[in-house]
């Protein structure tokens, strides 16, 4: 028994599946209708059925393998054609179920392909130095209250808190300026939650984690202007990504 893992949807005749290994070590292939096709892989039902995938999602090693393989196939396919990436862990019983889905969701896929045609996704992250309590100024508030250590302490605490609020305000302003600069060169944007410092691997705090859909002709301009918009903050641009974040119509 086997199942069918779906990587992405493309127009019929857009090309073969990339020559590489998929999520189960399988060779991806294309199944399709007259108008649309899906890049799929034949995977074992053991491990890729509902219970198998649920278990995989609890296992960091398995998640990483699935995520990298899924992305790898979608990215390779997107090299030379327009694709609508499909969400991780989309599995069908057989090819007929996939083609039935392509017919049923035809209009939606058409719209998705039109939306991302000639465009790619670029990630933008902004990091600033910690906005948590900065080191206290050496003698803030001490001068006039030298004989009242309790008051000096409270004044110092308040000054620290004000500086903390100011730093957070500054960080927000930097994030919004970078986001605004990026949006001006892009056709669409999605925001992600800032990544935990333990995951980003940086000591600085992430204050913007967004991704933009950019026309290919404007990619150089996008990278150049966004990279320069940090004004002292670290701006990280990643990409190009297949348009994962723009394959589905915007919610709301």
């Amino acid at each position, binding site marked *: 028994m086997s199942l069918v893992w779906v990587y992405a949807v493309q127009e019929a005749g857009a090309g073969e599946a990339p020559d590489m290994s998929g999520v189960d070590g399988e060779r991806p292939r294309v199944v399709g209708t007259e108008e649309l096709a899906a890049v799929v892989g034949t995977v074992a039902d053991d491990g890729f059925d*509902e219970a198998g995938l649920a278990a995989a999602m609890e296992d960091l090693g398995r998640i990483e393998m699935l995520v990298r393989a899924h992305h790898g196939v979608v990215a390779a396919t997107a090299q030379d054609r327009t694709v609508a990436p499909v*969400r991780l862990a989309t599995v*069908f019983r057989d090819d007929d179920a996939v083609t039935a889905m392509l017919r049923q969701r035809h209009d939606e896929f058409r719209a998705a392909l039109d939306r991302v045609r000639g465009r790619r996704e670029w990630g933008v992250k902004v990091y600033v130095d910690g906005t948590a309590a900065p080191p206290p100024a050496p003698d803030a508030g001490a001068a006039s209250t030298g004989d009242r250590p309790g008051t000096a302490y409270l004044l110092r605490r308040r000054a620290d808190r004000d500086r903390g609020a100011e730093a957070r305000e500054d960080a927000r302003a930097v994030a919004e300026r970078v986001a605004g600069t990026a949006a001006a060169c892009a056709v669409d944007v999605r925001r992600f939650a800032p990544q935990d410092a333990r*995951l980003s691997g940086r000591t600085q705090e992430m204050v913007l*984690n967004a991704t933009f859909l950019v026309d290919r002709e404007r990619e150089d301009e996008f990278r150049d202007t966004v990279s320069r918009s940090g004004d002292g903050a670290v701006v990280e641009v990643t990409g190009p990504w297949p348009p994962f974040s723009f394959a589905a119509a915007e919610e709301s």
Partner: protein
Amino acid sequence: MSGPVSISHPDDELSLVDLLDRLLAGGVVLTGEVTISLAEVDLVHVSLRALISSVSTLQQGDREDATDA
């Protein structure tokens, strides 16, 4: 003067977290006969908690190497 800038390309080792941002939240969502809709279950949250603790454990060992690269 503009700030420090880094541009990374997918040819580099892609950050797993960046991949998860896109692959767990993005892509066309289809409900097939055997599909797991990750958006509809708590699996992602469970997994991300596991990920945070795993990553922070892993980083004890290779952090220096990674940041010096």
